[in-house]
């Protein structure tokens, strides 16, 4: 089954991209989830869609190579993440308000750009739900660069990001530059979203950041273990999802996310079963003692 993926270049690009985002999305996703920012990823992905629509429009109107949908998607995503932070400080008591504001702005802009270009048909469909054939060699190179940046920054700032996620107040007391670190973090988030959209699509990109973590958090001990398990979940779903999506002719966004949901349900059930068994054993032991 893998043979096809390695034989054709477009599939190879997709496969390598999948493996990369299967690592970086859950890696960053762990920090996003524990900071309770899961929904913000969703808002950002819709802003990225506006950027992609803008890029497609410019590509169509000007033919300029500087406005590829990928780069304008990254640009909008970064600007969107900065705006979300601004809004969060404007509405301190209603921080979640920044989500519908930015999300609807993203969708609104997308609709305008799409209609200005008189529709994009298949291209847009691929951006919404992901595609196994949409990754060009250029895209793959950009995604590799993004992945290297994300991994290096997280490696370098791991302990600061961890402290900031756990206890922002304490981080500030100890003299860490919380605001700067947080800014770096939201830039990374924007980059990861832009990189993942090619494969899982705008509508499902946040799930690749959050679902693996949701499953891993049920069984992991500690933060590092949560990250490692999340990557294993993410990678499993991406690889199987890409292959099954290709053979079933379904956009991979759908197959990857449904695989993640299945993995999540299996994890929750098995955790509950083991918990119950432990309890029963515990009770039995107590009875013997009595």
């Amino acid at each position, binding site marked *: 089954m893998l043979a096809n993926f390695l034989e054709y270049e477009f599939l190879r690009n997709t496969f390598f991209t999948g493996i990369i985002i299967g690592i970086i999305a859950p890696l960053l996703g762990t920090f996003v989830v*524990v900071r*309770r920012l899961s929904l913000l990823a969703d808002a950002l992905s819709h802003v990225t869609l506006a950027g992609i629509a803008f890029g497609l429009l410019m590509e169509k109107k000007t033919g300029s190579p500087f406005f590829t949908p990928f780069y304008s998607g990254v640009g909008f995503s970064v600007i969107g993440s900065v705006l979300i932070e601004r809004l969060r400080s404007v509405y301190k008591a209603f921080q979640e308000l920044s989500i519908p504001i930015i999300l609807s702005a993203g969708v609104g802009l997308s609709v305008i750009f799409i209609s200005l270009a008189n529709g994009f048909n298949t291209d847009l469909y691929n951006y919404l739900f992901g595609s196994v054939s949409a990754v060009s060699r250029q895209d793959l190179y950009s995604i590799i660069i993004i992945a290297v940046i994300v991994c290096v920054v997280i490696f*370098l*700032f791991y*302990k*600061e990001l*961890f*402290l900031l*996620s*756990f*206890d922002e*107040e*304490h*981080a*500030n*007391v*100890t*003299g*860490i530059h919380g605001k700067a670190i947080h800014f770096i973090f939201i830039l990374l988030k924007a980059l990861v979203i832009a990189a993942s959209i090619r494969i899982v699509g705008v509508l499902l990109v946040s799930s690749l950041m959050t679902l693996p973590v949701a499953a891993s*958090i049920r069984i*992991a*001990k*500690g*933060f*590092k*273990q*949560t990250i490692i398990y999340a990557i294993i979940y993410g990678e499993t779903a991406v690889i199987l999802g890409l292959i099954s999506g290709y053979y079933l002719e379904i956009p991979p966004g759908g197959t990857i996310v449904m695989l993640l949901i299945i993995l999540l349900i299996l994890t929750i059930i098995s955790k509950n079963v083991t918990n119950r068994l432990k309890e029963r054993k515990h009770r039995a032991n107590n009875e013997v003692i009595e």
Partner: protein
Amino acid sequence: MGNTIVNMKNVSFHYGSRQALSNINFQIKQGDFTGLVGPNGGGKTTLIKLILGLEKPTAGEITIFDTPVQKYKQKSKIGYVSQKANSFNRGFPATVAEVVAMGLTAKLGYFKRLSKEDKRKIKQAIEQVGMAEYTHENIGNLSGGQQQRIFIARALVSEPELIILDEPTVGVDAENVEKFFDLLHELNKQNITLLLVTHDIGTMTQHANQIVCLNKTLHFHGKPSSFQSLSKEQLSDYYGHPLNLVTHQH
């Protein structure tokens, strides 16, 4: 007496036009166990923020280890256990060892990772608070009192000379409060200076060697025994409302 660790001279602080603290003068010397008491809204947390350098005094001067607080950079010499330690996200996936390691973040500085020596210190800090068997347990699975011990260990791991605790026993049951104070007493014996904000005046007067009572201004500064011998009227006057002083006698 030991060296002066915290020195406040004529310190005042305003939030906008509202005066929170007015003309505060007191010192904390090395080895002191200071109890900071006073009514809610009396400025206790503000005072701590000033000492930690999170807020700037509107007037007056604060020195930490003889350095003006705004210029004081060696933050690892001060450990801080906040009130909020009780209300962190309990589902957060972090082991006890990972939480305690956070205490070294600032001391190590950027781009540095934990050395073997640091890991030994982490282990030692966890042992010091009597939680060694929980080292690899998720922090969320521990009780409130146990979590508070872990936050003490997090403060201890950077080998501070002063530990500031802001109402650390809120939400901890009576038996564990007692044990918690025993632990603080142990630390104090090891020459760690403690500044503790608390509502529990009774327990406080047993352990501290000086009491500071704050309600916008400094109402009392002295030995616990003289604080206990204050009349009910005087205390009510300081607190701005009647107060029943519960004392624990052993």
